[in-house]
């Protein structure tokens, strides 16, 4: 039998693999026809590979220690975030132009505390159970929000009515096959409109280890990783949904975390166990958003002026390029 060295398992008890298994140079594990033997040989080969790898690591570590201070710095593993293509619209903290823009854009009255946010949440026609429940939960999360059902009303007609009743923001949740899959967020007095694709929506009862219901306290807001100009404006849109003064008594926090152009929304209750440890408990719904388009005025699909549209062919070409 041209098996190479090593015992052949015929009796069920395999002797321990020798330290260095010598295979004849023309041997390859995949050439053995017998499945059991082949499997055994393969396992042995794998073990040997692992041993070699471990030995290599140990050697490297010894060398590093031996060098002591003169050792070369540890290599940083490459991640997508590390390798991200530098976006020229990244906001620099000291940028005056951006500062000026933000002082004069549509959110300035909110940030100057002249307006209190009042949100209207609605859906597309004939919402099904999941969407309805999601709307209700969203309304508990966002303070000062109202849910109204859309019975075939045209958005273009709703908007002037909303403005007349002092609403500052409009959220429309689009539904497809009984699950919500889109979100249109529109800042009302002639503000920008953002259209998102919504995915992995989890209602409160589907979240494991969740806490009690969110209370009426105004939550804090965390906005993570909105770096570019576009990200900045979207972040401000989100911030404008919540009233300016969070009530710390409530210990609730709403997070919008942007990672690789996906915005994750979470709602937690936190508690400080000590000054270095904080515990968080997820309450409230969770969903992820991906920006599809940003329009300058309020919602108008035909004549609106689009500030940014996601064009798949142009923008999805590189895996390291993100826009938010």
């Amino acid at each position, binding site marked *: 039998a041209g098996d190479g060295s090593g015992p052949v398992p015929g009796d069920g008890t395999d002797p321990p693999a020798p330290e260095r298994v010598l295979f004849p140079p023309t041997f390859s594990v995949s050439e053995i026809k017998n499945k059991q033997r082949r499997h055994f040989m393969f396992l042995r080969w794998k073990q040997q590979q692992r041993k070699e790898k471990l030995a290599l690591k140990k050697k490297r570590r010894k060398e590093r220690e031996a060098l002591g201070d003169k050792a070369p710095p540890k290599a940083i593993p490459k991640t997508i975030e590390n390798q991200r293509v530098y976006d020229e619209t990244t906001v620099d903290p000291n940028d005056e132009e951006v500062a000026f823009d933000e002082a004069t854009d549509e959110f300035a009255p909110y940030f100057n505390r002249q307006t209190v946010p009042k949100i209207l949440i609605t859906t597309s026609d004939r919402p099904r159970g999941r969407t309805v429940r999601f709307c209700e939960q969203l309304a508990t999360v966002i303070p000062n929000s109202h849910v109204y059902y859309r019975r075939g009303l045209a958005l273009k007609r709703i908007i002037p009515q909303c403005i007349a009743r002092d609403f500052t923001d409009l959220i429309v949740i689009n539904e497809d096959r009984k699950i919500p899959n889109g979100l249109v967020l529109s800042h009302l007095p002639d503000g920008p409109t953002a259209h998102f694709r919504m995915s992995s929506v989890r209602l409160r009862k589907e979240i494991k280890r969740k806490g009690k219901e969110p209370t009426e306290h105004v939550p804090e807001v965390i906005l*993570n990783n909105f770096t570019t100009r576009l990200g900045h404006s979207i972040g401000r849109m989100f911030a404008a949904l919540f009233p300016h003064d969070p009530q710390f008594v409530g210990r609730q926090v709403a997070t919008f975390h942007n990672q690789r152009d996906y915005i994750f929304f979470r709602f937690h209750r936190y508690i400080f166990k000590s*000054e270095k440890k904080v515990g968080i408990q997820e309450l409230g719904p969770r969903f992820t958003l991906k920006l599809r388009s940003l329009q300058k005025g309020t919602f108008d699909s035909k004549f609106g002026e689009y500030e940014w549209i996601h064009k798949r062919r142009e923008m999805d070409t590189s895996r390291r390029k993100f826009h938010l």
Partner: protein
Amino acid sequence: TKTQNFCRNEYNLTGLCNRSSCPLANSQYATVREEKGRCYLYMKTIERAAFPRRLWERVLLSKNYEKALEEIDENLIYWPRFIRHKCKQRFTKITQYLIRIRKLTLKRQRKLVPLRRKIERRENRREEKALIAAQLDNAIEKELLERLKQDTYGDIYNFPIHAFDKALQQQDAESESESDAEREEEEDDDEDVDKREFVEAEDSELSDFEDMDKLETSSEEEQEEEEEVEKKASHSKSKGKTPLKGPARRKRPYIEIEYEEETEPSTKTKAA
């Protein structure tokens, strides 16, 4: 129940395959059909049976419902009752559905956008990977601890004594190195504060700023009560986050004055 077949001929009057309603079986036949929103009466007579091209004679019916019915009647005068009746019925049905079409086009129409399966799958996969890379819990906890250190919560939580001390030490070191000029520069931009909030998670966020505003008052309250000038200095410059306190600092003189007035009477009463 008796089942009936459908007739596939496009000139059929009732749609069912019967001897009496088959356009091929009857040499004298009439139908009503509509094209582009207008209704026509088609008639077939035995005289033209030899000329297939001229077989079906077409008459445009008026848009007015009653007038059209009269036109059908006068065109199909002396024709069998069955055909006349069925033509009028068919015409009624057609006008009704035309009306419905026109009404629907005025309402909002649901636009169906087809999903591309490959793209959906790609996006879902990328979302999962982004979720793993995001490490949301860690990020949120870090951010909350940052805010605690930055004193956004003020006096609510009692333990940050170590944080105070550490902050004190650091800021003392800073105050020796920093000059007043630097501080004044950083006081400049109001908006600087706003922007800073949206940059990387390491920097403070928006509500930080909002809380800062509200917080300056509460933190100053503490300060006045505790009468520690050092703390005032330390609060005024958090390590590297001075820009945040810029506008608040500008407002501070007003607030200080207020509180000084408040505490004075109390001391007076105590003395008395």
